[in-house]
């Protein structure tokens, strides 16, 4: 607790240091409406004072004025003049006029006059970016986060058309799985935090460090080529426009989860509340691989080796079961501080943000089951093999900090940003386990304790330079990032009922330590030249980037052999002294390291991706814009690791060496001033991950499932039929997009899109025909995805003027995907087909949602400060795991998410903001089911998240 107080004290010191003022400041940014680009050299005049300023290359200006009320005149040759009236500026205050859009004038001396109070930061700036972008893109900005009340990037980004979130963490764009979605931070690659995924976990980015999230759905040459559904760019906060210091607190109460005395947790470390382990969960061997093993010491327990073995055994944390006690509610704390300091010739800006979140979840009667097709093909209904039902509690802590400084001169801008995110998640579960698999019928009580720690530190140094007016724009970025994922001491214990037996059939107690360290280094250079091409304004872009990634992955697991010990059924007494191996108790409980002498659950990998591109933005006719480009990527990947018995050893061996060219064509035809027709045809790629392109044989001791590296072949019929040749290659994808869009005033819009993608040799996880418990990445038959999208933002003022403050947003994506099955899968499906079932050789793509719908009604009243919204989101039933052998396909059941949020600003200058929200109003459940031909669906997972009431306050100093 002392630390929190210290923390707060630092905040207050920081904030008080910047109170100085006599004059007020007016700042703003001017854009050209047609192109969405900042306007340089615009005159901004304070009519009453006859003082003025001129915008810089970013379209920005700043004026110092004495306190008072002013009219501002914005004028530029051949553009419509804007008058902003009644702009009240108090002493020491910064008034920001963001996103002023200037139109090329239609008639002589036209002037637009607006009340200063009517200008707000809305989605309009983003809309203008979207409208003028050369590619199909979407996004969401900070102002919307507030309106919807989303606390992290994952929940915010799912508001974007065609975006869905899996497991609260991973982004899917247009329903394409995470393999086809790329997540970048400030435009540069960052390491993922999950060895099994390509994408970054989005839930660790708190919204108060984010400026906006942009989703590019079609490829242009300046983007990385390894995405298909979309590239999601999280932009952290930049140059603040005004001095701001905000403190916010938030809370959430879920009646089914919070203040519940049945909540499950376990004794962790003293720093769990800060999102990291204090060493309580450290591995007792220090990670050594030369530790003595039981068979070496059983004959001589008191030898030096035997004593070392015994002391290691006694050093394992003895807590194996959770505690039932009352849960706390969710709470959060945020603080941000930023300012801009204008000095002669140089403008400085800084930004600091801290965030802390502590969330608690409790799932009662959660189910995790295994159902299968019976051996008799005449029986359609599925039979249970394993049923696991019980309760589990989760405590998730997120601590994040962002600090950035920026400097702007006449022709250059430099930014330096530091970001650190720390996340710790502690889980405790208590389950009943029913086994009916393969004749072994038993009931058991299962205890799980887990802790997962994720950390990400990123530095971004970037610069922008303008040469020769705005003719040349040069952007460069240098971004090293380090990420770390640790699962220290995953603990699993299961007792057979009723005699509390622990044995091989019921599963031995297991402890696992898993670490993933990744380092990324990205360097990027983009050059932009305004040019006159074909008699019209155009742009030439070229540049390159260099990405280096390095990953170090390691699992060390231990099994505990019970020997001849009998147990009470209390997990916390399993490791009692009287049970443990020693001189007197030679057949006592002991540990067995699974990773000695060979550790197939460890690898080091690195990759280098060198990219270069050039593209041209042409205007062949007044209404047509064409962006043509080509990108080259030279990609090499290296792997160090072994298979299970170390008969295959790769030592930094090159496993992938590809040189590809990715052409892209984007056409934008302006049907009318506010209507675009877009067409794009591009080529992109999806590459196998570090682990996939390997000879790894990674066994998960808890699920009993194995991951087998893609380089191993599989054959059947005594070796005569090759099912997989072990030659895993990258997937090349052709993308075609067609979009019609209509932009209307006040951010209203309507668009219709269609897309078609072809996948050459897509990679999917395929199970072995000879062993359905083993999964391997393989290239399967070619696939296609066809989709349509509708997006609508409409003010309800058209229905009735009374509803002017209401607006309706709706977006929907409908897709139809098809993939040709691998030989293994087809054969397996044929062999287990039910009577009367016909087996096709194609199916939908795994992870591809058939539809995604987002809709909502929002209310905004700037004069009263009320904002409210009711939002609905659903994703159609999606193929989750592909069925194999006697296992069937699993599908996620649509989750009908209905959320409500209300905001109100109070006080002088609206210094206080309060918000209130309700999540999952429909109290829907998160479910995945086994589905088979004419059989009743059975649960794979079944969780009740309940309904949560959220509230928060923000105070601006």
């Amino acid at each position, binding site marked *: 607790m002392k630390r929190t107080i210290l923390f707060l004290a630092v905040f207050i010191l920081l904030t008080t240091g910047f109170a100085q003022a006599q004059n007020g400041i007016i700042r703003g940014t001017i854009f050209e409406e047609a192109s969405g680009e900042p306007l340089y050299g615009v005159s901004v005049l304070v009519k009453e004072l006859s003082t003025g300023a001129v915008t810089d290359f970013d379209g920005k200006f700043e004026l110092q004025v004495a306190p008072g009320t002013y009219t501002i005149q914005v004028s530029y040759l051949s553009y419509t003049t804007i008058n902003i009236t009644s702009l009240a500026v108090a002493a020491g205050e910064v008034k920001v006029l963001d996103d002023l859009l200037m139109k090329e004038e239609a008639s002589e001396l036209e002037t637009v006059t607006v009340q200063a109070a009517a200008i707000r930061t809305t989605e309009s700036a983003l809309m203008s970016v979207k409208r003028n972008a050369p590619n199909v893109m979407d996004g969401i900005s900070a102002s919307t986060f507030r309106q919807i009340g989303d606390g992290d990037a994952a929940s915010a980004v799912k508001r974007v058309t065609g975006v869905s979130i899996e497991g609260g963490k991973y982004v899917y764009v247009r329903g394409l799985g995470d393999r086809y979605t790329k997540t970048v931070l400030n435009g540069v690659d960052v390491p993922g935090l999950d060895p099994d995924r390509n994408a970054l976990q989005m839930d660790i980015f708190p919204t108060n460090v984010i400026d906006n999230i942009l989703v590019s759905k079609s490829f242009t040459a300046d983007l990385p080529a390894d995405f298909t559904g979309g590239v999601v760019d999280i932009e952290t906060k930049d140059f603040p426009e005004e001095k701001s210091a905000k403190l916010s607190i938030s809370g959430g109460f879920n009646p089914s989860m919070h203040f519940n005395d049945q909540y499950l947790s376990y004794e962790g470390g003293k720093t769990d509340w800060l999102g990291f382990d204090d060493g309580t969960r450290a591995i007792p061997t220090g990670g050594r691989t030369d530790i003595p093993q039981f068979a070496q010491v059983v004959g001589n327990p008191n030898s030096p080796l035997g004593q070392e073995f015994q002391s290691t055994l006694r050093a394992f944390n003895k807590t194996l079961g959770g505690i039932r006690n009352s849960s706390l509610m969710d709470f959060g704390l945020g603080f941000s501080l930023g300012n801009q300091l204008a000095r002669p010739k140089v403008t400085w800006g800084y930004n600091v943000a801290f965030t802390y979140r502590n969330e608690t979840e409790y799932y009662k009667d959660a189910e995790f089951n295994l159902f299968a097709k019976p051996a008799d093909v005449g029986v359609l209904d599925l039979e249970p093999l394993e049923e696991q039902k019980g309760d589990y509690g989760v405590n998730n802590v997120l601590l994040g900090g962002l600090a950035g400084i920026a400097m702007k001169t006449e022709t250059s801008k430099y930014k330096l940003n530091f970001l650190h995110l720390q996340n710790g998640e502690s889980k405790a579960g208590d389950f009943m386990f029913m086994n009916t698999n393969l004749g072994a019928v038993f009931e058991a009580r299962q205890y799980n304790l887990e802790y997962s720690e994720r950390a990400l530190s990123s530095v971004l140094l970037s610069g922008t330079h303008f040469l020769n007016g705005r003719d040349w724009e040069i952007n460069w970025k240098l971004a090293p990032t380090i990420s770390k994922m640790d699962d220290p001491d995953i603990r699993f214990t299961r007792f057979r009922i009723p005699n509390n037996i622990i044995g091989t059939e019921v599963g031995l107690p297991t402890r696992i330590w898993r670490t993933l360290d990744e380092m990324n280094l990205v360097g990027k250079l983009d050059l932009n030249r305004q040019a006159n091409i074909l008699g019209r304004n155009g742009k030439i872009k070229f540049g390159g980037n260099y990405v280096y990634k390095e990953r170090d992955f390691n699992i060390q697991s231990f099994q505990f052999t019970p020997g001849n010990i009998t147990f009470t059924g209390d997990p916390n007494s399993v490791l009692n002294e009287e049970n443990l191996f020693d001189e007197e108790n030679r057949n006592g409980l002991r540990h067995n390291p699974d990773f000695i002498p060979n550790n197939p659950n460890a690898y080091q990998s690195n990759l280098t991706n060198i990219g270069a591109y050039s593209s041209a933005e042409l205007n062949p006719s007044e209404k047509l814009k064409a962006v043509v480009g080509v990108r080259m990527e030279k990609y090499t990947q290296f792997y160090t690791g072994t298979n299970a018995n170390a008969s295959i050893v790769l030592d930094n061996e090159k496993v992938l060496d590809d040189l590809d060219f990715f052409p892209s064509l984007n056409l934008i035809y302006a049907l009318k001033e506010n209507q675009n027709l877009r067409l794009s045809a591009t080529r992109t790629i999806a590459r196998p991950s570090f682990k996939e392109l390997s000879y790894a044989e990674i066994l998960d001791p808890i699920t009993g499932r194995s991951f087998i590296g893609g380089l191993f072949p599989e054959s059947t019929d005594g070796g005569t039929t090759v099912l997989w040749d072990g030659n895993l290659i990258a997937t090349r994808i052709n993308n075609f997009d067609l979009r019609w869009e209509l932009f209307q005033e006040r951010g209203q819009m309507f668009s219709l899109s269609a897309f078609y993608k072809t996948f050459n040799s897509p990679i999917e996880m395929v199970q072995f025909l000879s*062993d359905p418990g083993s999964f391997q990445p393989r290239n399967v038959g070619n696939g296609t995805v066809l989709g349509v999208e509708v997006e609508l933002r409409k003010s309800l003022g058209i229905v009735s003027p009374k509803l002017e403050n209401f607006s309706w947003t709706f977006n929907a994506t409908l897709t139809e995907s098809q993939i040709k099955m691998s030989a293994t899968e087809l054969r397996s499906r044929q062999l287990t087909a039910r009577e009367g079932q016909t087996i096709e050789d194609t199916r939908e793509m795994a992870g591809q949602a058939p539809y995604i719908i987002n809709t909502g009604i929002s209310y905004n009243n700037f004069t009263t400060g009320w904002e409210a919204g009711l939002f609905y989101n659903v994703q159609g039933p999606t193929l989750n795991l592909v069925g194999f052998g006697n296992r069937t396909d699993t599908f996620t059941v649509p989750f009908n998410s209905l959320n409500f949020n209300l905001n109100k600003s109070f006080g002088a200058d609206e210094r206080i903001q309060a918000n209130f929200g309700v999540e999952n109003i429909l109290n829907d459940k998160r479910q995945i089911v086994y589905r088979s031909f004419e059989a009743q669906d059975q649960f794979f997972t079944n969780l009740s998240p309940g309904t949560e009431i959220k509230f928060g306050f923000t105070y601006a100093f």
Partner: protein
Amino acid sequence: MKKFNYLLMLFTAATFALTSCGEDEVPDNGVTIEGIPATATIEAGGTLGPVTATATALDGLVSLVITKDGAPLATVPLSGTTASAPFSYPAEPGDAGKNVVFEFTVTDTDGDVAKATHVLTVGAEATTIRITSNLTTSQTWETGKTYILAGRIAVEPGNTLTIEPGVVVKGEVGTGANASALIIPRGAKIEAVGTATQPIIFTTVADELEPGQIASPNLDPELNGLWGGLIVLGRAKGSFLGNTSETQIEGIPASDPNGLFGGDNDADDSGTLKYISIRHGGANIGEGNEINGLTLGSVGSETEVEFVEVIGNQDDGIEWFGGTVDVKNAVVWNAGDDAIDADMAWNGTLDNFIVVNAGDKCFELDGPEGSYVNGNYTMTNGSVAADDAAGLVDNDANTNVDLSNIYFFGIKAGQTFDQTPTVPAAFSNFQVTLPAGTAITDFFLGTSAEATTAVAAGANTVGADKAPFAGWSWTAVSGALDDFK
């Protein structure tokens, strides 16, 4: 038999002609030999050298003669005034543990002679041989020796591993993916034929047992999970999940094709196992993924398995996965899980067997996993001392088994013969010695009660004959079979 060849590489390195100085008398210039060390030591089967002998004779060299222990080994013709000859010698089996004397004799044109002597000490033959990778040729493991399995060792298809009587095989330490095991995959054979006085013993490196011993000098017979086990796989039919024709055995990753079993040759021959004792194994890989003492996956009917003992295995004692092999004279003592386990529509006979103390069930009897099934498997003439077992017989609804002539004793409350399968299954001639105050139906459920009669301890007229286990099995030697007939 491994053929020993010895290599002798000799060549002339340098020669130069001697020019005569007219008709003067030629002085006698003598001859020298250099470069041969006086002594060297190598291991049994090791190779000496190469060492280089350099001979010099101004009168002109003629030859180098090498003898081994007095017997001629090689003669190398030489010429010129200086010549070098590299010499190497791979030790023969007979050299092990001896000193071998080599004599090098150089002669020049006028009969001068120079000699060098080399004494080579060859170490005693190793009696412990560590096997670190799959056997890619046929091999014989010899009587009197101990072989260490350094990991998961398979005999690659097409090869035969012959194990002579009395051999001890020890698995190295390791669990999970590192569990050591001996695998005889499809297409490979094992000829492990012990004798009633010299059984072949598979155990852990922790066991200080030496060839010739039956009981472990240092390990308790209950200790288990110290290594993997013996896995024999064949091409006979089985009834597999998903109706596949072949499948992967538990304990071996799917990426290793040596773990595949099943096919369509019911008369497949994986070799012979006789007088085999397997101890302290059963390392756990993961849940539902363990190594049994003796795993028989789709092993065909031409394979002979007789006189088999499994002691202190962490998982099951003997487990059949399909196949047609018969097993005769088997004893399972202190199994950590089930003693006798049959799955996947095995179609053979287990005859004359003893179970002493199981961890879970004495019999775990399952049915087909796919749609293939071909009649019932048979277990007959068995005696079972249940002791600490969780149950007697665990049948499933689809268990295709015929059980007859089995005697159960040492039973206690809670241990049951659990159910009668709904598929045809025959139970006959069971006898049981009941704890005082209990009834047959307390233990034998379903139709099994009708097949059972109660007898006084030791008064059984059915069951196993323990005579075949005498002498070679640790179970018998330890006295654990004293209560059996």
